[in-house]
């Protein structure tokens, strides 16, 4: 294992100059959503950082998260980071297969006990579900996860499936899928949600771990605040249109062409926390809203079942119009009935009217 070399040495071996290193640090700071003034601190830390061992476990997933990471333009800063980590097990990427692959995992676990990082993508059948839904080398996902995290320093759940259950967990959840944080209680779990996550966010979290050796500050959902601290809505360049009340009403109307807000087309930006609006996708080329498509809210728990991708956020999920009509009709009928009963009460009272006479009054005096 190559943990003996520091990152500084590793980079210099790659022929990276000090200016190059500074540039690398500036880009890293930008990626970690840190202010540019942090670059010297990063440089100092990175000089001394050691290559951590990473074990990547893929369970019920579509490989989209790995794709997101590896398909980013190379060689980028992300890749440089990957050059300096020691990815000891990743059954999609590694050459070894079968027993040899599993052996590599076990070896990494033994050599780096208590120090390695476990990255998980995909959800997994829970302890009470049929383990046969997903196995690797005859080992159930559950057993493999619990076995692997035993000596881990921390677990990074990459993608919404690993972080919150994602698509496998969507209604009716046939495989009994659960998320990593549902199972891992005694290790720090960092959720990097998104379907897939922004690649720079994945590497940003890894960079933080190897730069400062610490875990980032997390939000209520266990996501790094640096990337998930603000909603898509609050950072969206189309926000001024929302505030002014200018909306695209359909995908091809004037509003859509003019780049107005997509709230009415079902944009989940207001309840979605992710870095898409600033980091963007495909090397900063664009992102869904810029492409004219409403945010699906893919970095949020249960986003598949959150009431329809093209329904505005505030729209109820049932059919309240029908309920209103039915209840209204029943109410009107009951109301008329009750009212007639009351009216009859008045009539009965009139029938029993006891005439007040002066004689009666006089006897009161």
């Amino acid at each position, binding site marked *: 294992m190559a943990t003996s070399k520091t990152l500084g040495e590793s980079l210099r071996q790659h022929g990276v100059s*000090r200016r190059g290193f500074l*540039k690398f640090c500036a880009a890293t700071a*930008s990626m970690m959503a840190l202010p540019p003034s942090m*670059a010297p601190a990063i440089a100092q830390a990175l000089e001394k950082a050691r290559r951590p061992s990473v074990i990547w476990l893929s369970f019920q997933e579509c490989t989209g998260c790995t794709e997101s990471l590896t398909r980013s*333009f190379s060689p980028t800063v992300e890749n440089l980071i990957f050059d300096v980590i020691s990815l000891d097990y990743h059954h999609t990427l590694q050459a070894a297969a079968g027993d040899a692959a599993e052996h590599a995992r076990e070896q990494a676990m033994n050599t780096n006990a208590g120090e390695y990082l476990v990255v998980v993508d995909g959800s997994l059948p829970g302890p009470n579900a049929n383990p046969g839904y997903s196995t690797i080398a005859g080992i159930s996902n559950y057993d493999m996860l619990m076995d692997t995290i035993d000596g881990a320093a921390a677990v990074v759940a990459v993608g919404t499936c690993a972080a919150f259950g994602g698509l496998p967990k969507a209604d009716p959840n046939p495989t009994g899928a659960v998320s990593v944080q549902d199972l891992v209680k005694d290790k720090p779990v960092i959720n990097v949600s998104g379907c897939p996550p922004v690649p720079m966010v994945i590497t940003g979290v890894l960079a933080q771990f190897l730069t400062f050796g610490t875990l980032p500050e997390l939000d209520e959902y266990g996501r790094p605040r640096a990337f998930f601290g603000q909603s898509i809505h609050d950072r*969206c360049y189309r926000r001024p249109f929302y505030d002014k009340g200018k909306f695209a009403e359909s995908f091809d109307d004037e509003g859509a062409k003019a780049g107005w807000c997509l709230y009415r087309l079902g944009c989940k930006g207001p309840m979605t926390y992710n870095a898409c609006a600033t*980091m963007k996708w495909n*090397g900063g080329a664009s992102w869904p809203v810029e492409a004219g498509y409403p945010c699906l809210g893919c970095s949020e728990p249960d986003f598949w079942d959150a009431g329809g991708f093209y329904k505005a956020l505030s729209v109820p999920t049932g059919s309240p119009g029908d309920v209103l009509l039915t209840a209204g009709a029943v109410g009107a009928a009951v109301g008329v009935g009750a009212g007639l009963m009351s009216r009859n009460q008045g009539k009965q009272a009139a029938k029993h009217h006891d005439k007040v006479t002066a004689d009666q009054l006089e006897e009161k005096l």
Partner: protein
Amino acid sequence: MAKLAGIPIHIEQPEAEPQQFGNALPILNEIRHALARFAERAEPTRIDLAAIPFGPGDEERLMALLGRGEVEATIDALGPTRVWETRFPGVWVLDYANVEGERIALQIEIDEIPQMLRTQRADITDSLAALDAALASATAADPAAESRH
């Protein structure tokens, strides 16, 4: 069902003016405050434009507003980094790209000279040693030098 060919496709001409989403001016304001700070206290500032939610056209507008000044430089380390002073001296733009020319970061720096352009101390030390080594080897290779002693 409509045949694929039956779906009308028309290509719209790219608009002459880049659309404005109103995010360029706030940055310009931030730059103005940074410049004032530098004028008063010589305190440099770096602004990372990756953290700004730019819409399409916003960046072009900002760059057009900043314009070009007298100085322009390129650093060749881990891919090209282009540095230029804007038409407001003291306000620099640093455009970092990877070896394939794709941008990895874009920053504004308010300083007399950007940090990236300065030669680092360690490099100067290294450079002295390198120069000494170069001198030594040059001397060793020059037969005329010995005869002078």
